[in-house]
């Protein structure tokens, strides 16, 4: 539990005592708020959830470095400030969500639609005062790079939306028709399945960029895969990484991705391909990474 981690890490006995007392004072206040003052006791599970929420608001659980400052400032003051930060994150997240909802890709995905709809419910169900660490919605659509489970509450949702926004922005740079053709070849049931739409489109665009071709058509043939295999043949893992990240940077410029974070995300997605390409290079199966659309698939 985060509280325990915070309490057990390298704190001195005095700091630990002050932190424990402060947390329990907050827990008592939160329990009263939760029961509306009508109950002097709560289930242990509820107490644990309330305490997790308190620690989330205080930013505890990451490391103990800020605990001293937090105690000097006053744990109640820090808690209120934490709630204020969460409110700002919520405002930002709602804007982000509206942008994602209004710029969905032209290709269909049931799970993406359901997820975006469900995040719309999150803003109503989320209770930052009592359960700020919880994520009361269903997030099923898979991202190319999942948000770490260590992110909680609005932090998780905002990180998810940020990544989804970049992925969908990328998809929206291409024609829906070309994407549909590619996705049909890659996974005919993509509309209904829990699959990420961005990955195959990105991989093919990256492959075309590597070959110095215009990525717009999203079409890689058998010969193109052969050329890519040649390109990857002699490189070390590091060399492969540099090759892919360089192509991702060029692709970002070509597609006018100007934000630092979105460029970094595209680089990270390219780097994710390195181990898969290294394996495919040795044992075959590049078409599993760069789905062909012209019959090159075995």
């Amino acid at each position, binding site marked *: *539990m985060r*509280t*325990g*981690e915070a*309490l*057990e890490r390298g704190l001195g006995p005095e700091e630990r005592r002050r932190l*424990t*007392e402060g947390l*329990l004072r907050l*827990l*008592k206040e939160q*329990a*009263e708020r*939760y*029961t*509306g003052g*009508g*109950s*002097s*006791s*709560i*289930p*242990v*599970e509820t*107490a*644990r959830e309330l*305490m997790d929420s308190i620690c989330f608001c205080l930013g505890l659980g990451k490391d103990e470095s800020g605990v001293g400052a937090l105690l000097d400032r006053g744990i109640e003051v820090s808690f209120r400030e934490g709630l204020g930060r969460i409110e700002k994150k919520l405002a930002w997240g709602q804007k982000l969500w509206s942008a994602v909802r209004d710029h969905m890709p032209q290709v269909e995905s049931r799970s993406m639609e359901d997820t975006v709809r469900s995040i719309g419910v999150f803003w109503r169900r989320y209770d930052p005062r009592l359960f700020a660490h919880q994520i009361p919605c269903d997030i099923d659509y898979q991202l190319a790079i999942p948000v770490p489970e260590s992110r909680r509450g609005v932090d998780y949702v905002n990180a998810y939306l940020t990544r989804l926004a970049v992925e969908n922005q990328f998809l929206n740079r291409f024609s829906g028709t070309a994407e549909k053709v590619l996705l049909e070849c890659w996974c005919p049931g993509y509309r209904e399945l829990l699959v990420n739409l961005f990955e195959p489109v990105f991989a093919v665009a990256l492959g075309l960029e590597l070959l110095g071709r215009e990525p717009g058509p999203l079409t890689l043939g058998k010969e193109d895969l052969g050329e890519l295999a040649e390109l990857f043949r002699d490189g070390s893992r590091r060399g492969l990484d540099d090759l892919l990240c360089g192509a991702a940077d060029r692709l970002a410029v070509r597609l006018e991705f100007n934000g630092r974070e979105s460029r970094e995300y595209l680089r990270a997605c390219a780097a994710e391909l390195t181990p898969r390409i290294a394996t495919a290079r040795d044992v075959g199966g590049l078409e599993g990474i760069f789905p062909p659309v012209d019959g090159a698939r075995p």
Partner: protein
Amino acid sequence: MTNEWLMAPGWMERAEMKLERCNRMTEPYGLVLTQSQMERLTARRREVLRAAGRVEFGEGVLPRLILAFRDSPYLEQHDYEEQLDGLQELFYRLKNECGEGLTDDELIGAMKRLYDGPAGGSLEFLAGVPADDLRRIGRTGSLKGTEWEEEPLDENW
């Protein structure tokens, strides 16, 4: 981390002082706790909370149970401690069964209504009352709508 820190004795307020004050209010009913009885009941509070999987803030529910039940015809000095112990244990168990929809005072009210009425002072009876009935009695303060609803008296009686 385990839940041990939540059950740590240091931060739950001690209840003995409050129980001493309760003694003054129950004495007219012939009910008094000795110092050692108060200590035993306070210690038992932690045990029953742990067994029920609950965490309590403040002085605990026992003083409120004492004040609510002090005029019960079924509470007697010879088994006063035993009855309070049973009521305390039952309270936390029933609290779990009823969920957060029922306040402490509503649950105590329902327990008292049943204890003095159909239960005839039996803790076993109270333990077997369905949560739905407890909720209904707690919210309305009456047995109406339960199987123990009193029949109206015949006009010729």
